[in-house]
C-alpha cells in the first residue's frame, strides 16, 4: 500500500499532534477509534540528569522501514490509516520525539496496532539516540 502523502516522516522540526490527528481523521469517516503514542525526551536516565537528546538516522533506510512498518500495520490490523513521525537532531528534555497514530473502525485494533508500531520501530528502524548530560554525552545502545 502506498503511504498517504506525509503520513510517514523524519524531520528536525517539531510536530503538532492535533495536525497529525486531523490529517488521520481526514482519510476516512468510518474511523471509530484512534490510538496514539507520543514519545518524549526524559530529563533523567541511568541515574544521570539528561539535558538533551540527539538523534541520528540512516535517513533513506529509516524512511523506507517506517513506510513498510505502516503498510504492514494497516494490513495486519485492518487499519483505515496510520501515521508515523520521528524527529532527528537535538531535542531538549521534555520535547517531543516520535508520534504514532493508528485509526481503525474500532478501538481494539487501533490500540494493538499503535503498540505494535512503536515496538517494531524500536527494533527495525535505523535511528540512534545520544544522551547529553552535564557528566558527558553517551550513545544509547539498548532500549527496554
Amino acid at each position, binding site marked *: 500500500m502506498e503511504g498517504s502523502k506525509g503520513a510517514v516522516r523524519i524531520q528536525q522540526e517539531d510536530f503538532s499532534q492535533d495536525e497529525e490527528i486531523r490529517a488521520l481523521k481526514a482519510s476516512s469517516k468510518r474511523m471509530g477509534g484512534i490510538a496514539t503514542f507520543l514519545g518524549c525526551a526524559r530529563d533523567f536516565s541511568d541515574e544521570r540528569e539528561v539535558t538533551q537528546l540527539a538523534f541520528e538516522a540512516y535517513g*533513506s*533506510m529509516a524512511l523506507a522501514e517506517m513506510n513498510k512498518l505502516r503498510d504492514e500495520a494497516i494490513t495486519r490490523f485492518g487499519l483505515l490509516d496510520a501515521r508515523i513521525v520521528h524527529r532527528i537532531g537535538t531535542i531538549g528534555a521534555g520535547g517531543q*520525539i516520535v508520534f504514532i497514530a493508528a485509526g481503525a473502525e474500532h478501538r481494539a485494533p487501533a490500540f494493538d496496532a499503535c503498540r505494535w508500531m512503536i515496538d517494531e520501530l*524500536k527494533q527495525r*528502524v*535505523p535511528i*540512534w*539516540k545520544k544522551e547529553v548530560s552535564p557528566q558527558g554525552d553517551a*550513545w544509547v545502545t*539498548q532500549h527496554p
Partner: protein
Amino acid sequence: MISILLFGPVAERAGTATLQFGHRPGLRLQELRDELSARYPQAFEIVCFTAVNGEQVRDQQTPLADGDEVAFMAKFSGG
C-alpha cells in the same frame, strides 16, 4: 569502489561516518567486515546490523558489487 556508511556510536568510535573501500572481484561482505574490524576494532565490536544498498543483510557471504553502499550499524535506539 564500495561506499561504507557508519552512524551514531559506530561513527563516533571510528572517528568517521564514511569510508571508501576498493572493490575487487569476488569480494564478500564478511571479508569487508573483517578488514574494517581490524582497522576499527572498537567501532566494530558494537556492530549488530549490516545493510547493503539500504536493505538489511544477514548473510555475511553476500557478494558485493562495485558501487554498493554498505552500512555497519549498532543496535538501534530510536523512539
